[in-house]
């Protein structure tokens, strides 16, 4: 594939606490060599390649699924000889993607679930009864009213938050 070279994203640099270290990346591949995802689905994910794409053509990267495949295991973050804050850079880049209006399906659905219930997993009455049967406290379909309300308020207060129900 071919790309025009875009100018490096000042956005990313300004926003990130660590992204400027991206410039020190000499592409040694320590990250990819350490990456569990790259190990099993190499054709879909290559952190080194992704970092270089972010560096060379941020805008193009924003719409790429690859961006959402980092499993934040922090192995590359731990080993990078140049101390690139890889995992954090990926998170920040996802922020930019969302700002540009790119909402990946599953994650967005999960976010909505959180806004609804305060959890990433649903608790049906049936499951709650199962808890009871095991002698565990019933927790209801959502977290406490108060907690749920606070989540709502915080997300509504935030000017940058984009996912609405």
């Amino acid at each position, binding site marked *: 594939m071919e790309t025009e070279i875009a100018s490096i994203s000042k956005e990313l640099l300004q926003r990130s606490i660590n992204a400027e*270290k991206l410039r*020190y990346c*000499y*592409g*040694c*591949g*320590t*990250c*990819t*060599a*350490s*990456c569990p995802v*790259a*190990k099993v689905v*190499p054709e879909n994910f*290559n952190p*080194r*390649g992704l970092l270089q794409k972010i560096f060379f053509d941020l805008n193009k990267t924003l719409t790429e699924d690859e961006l959402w495949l980092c499993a934040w295991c922090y*192995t*590359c973050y731990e*080993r*990078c*000889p*140049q*101390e690139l804050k890889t995992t954090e850079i990926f998170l920040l880049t996802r922020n930019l993607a969302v700002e540009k209006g790119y909402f990946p399906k599953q994650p967005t659905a999960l976010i909505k679930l959180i806004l609804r219930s305060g959890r990433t997993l649903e608790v049906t009455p049936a499951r709650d009864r199962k808890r009871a049967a095991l002698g565990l406290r019933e927790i209801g379909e959502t977290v406490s009213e108060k907690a749920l309300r606070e989540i709502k308020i915080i997300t509504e207060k935030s000017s940058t938050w984009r996912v609405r129900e």
Partner: protein
Amino acid sequence: MENVGSVTVIGGGVAGIQAALELAKLGMLVYLVEEKPSIGGRIIELNCSSCQLEVPMDCSICPVIPKMVECHNHSNIRLLTKTHVTGFSGAVGNFVLSVLKQPRFVHEDRCTGCGACAEKCPVEVFDAFNMVQGKKKAIYFPVPQAFPQIPVIDKENCVHFRNGNCKKCSEVCPTHAIDFSDEDMKIGIESDAVVLATGLSLYDPAAIREYGYKRYKNVITILDLEQMTSIHGLTGGRVVRISDQKKPRRIAFIQCVGSRSRRTGNNFCSGVCCLYTAKDAALVKMLLPETEVYVFYIDLRVFGKGYQELLNKVRNDLGVKYIRGRPGGIWEDPKTKDLIISYENTLIRRAEKLRVDMVVLSPALLPHPSNQKLAEILGLEVDEDGFFKSPNPVASPCDTTLEGVFTCGYCRGPRGIAESATQASAAAARVAETIALTKSRRVKR
């Protein structure tokens, strides 16, 4: 002829030796100060292997031994081993250095270097020189080709110094050279100029935990390999796996271990690893032709005269496989002690695994730790890494921030043997020039 000046050279490695000789030939009286019991520096720790190979390949120490001899016998050179600098005063043309010579407990003028003492010595201790070789005696030759060829007593481990009831070495010594009463000696040296040649030290790759150095037996450093391939090593120059002494079928070299890294704080490139790795990869190939050899690198630094040509030979003729990629980690198979390397071949962007019998790391080469202290004593500037600073790295490469004090070799920044030797000659020239100018200045006044 009478001496035109006197100079103190600090450090007896390749650079120091070359500088001392050059200065001596320029009619200077030279004090060569070396903290170890033998001159020769790091290079005499390296392999002496070409002799056992049918191929023309200079082993690391052959070019240096004649220089060491010349150094030792030159009427203009005073050799001070086991000595370090403790004080410094004065200015160019009349510096005064105070040095401390630590006891060797062996009379340098009586000893014939026959080694009978070491044979009789009952103590065996671990030998830092050689992880592969392991042991040494409490009276020992610092390195197989030590110069002066005189043993030294290791006070910590010598039975005599522990409880006084062993004199085996002195009893067996034919020339009565052993002297337990030997002690520290303070010496003052007057010098017109000083040349620093403190050399380098090795980064400990154990700090890069995922490579498992010191945890996995078959992960060794290039220095370990040099000593293993040395005729003097325990294996007599055979390349074997430490774990089972078996001949390795696959060896991988890893470059830039701890260098070019913000994580370790050593942002610099050591400047020599790409070359010596090519050389040792070739050596392994020639010792074990059927063994597969891999080299993991980031940038191949082939800037030196003849490097590219050597690399082509190693790659194309000897079939050493080069892979652009820095491995992420190494896992040791607990049963076989084989090593599984995870790496990305970055040129085809593919994460892969490679099972090898042995891994050889090229650790970062750091400036010698003594630089900091030396800089304080002499009132010089060192940079954040501990290299001596030059007032202008372009125009005056061997000068320091103090007139009359010069540098050569690794202590000024990463460089190889050839450049160190050249810079040593250069430092000598600067000394001669500076002394000439200061004298004429004096005359004018």
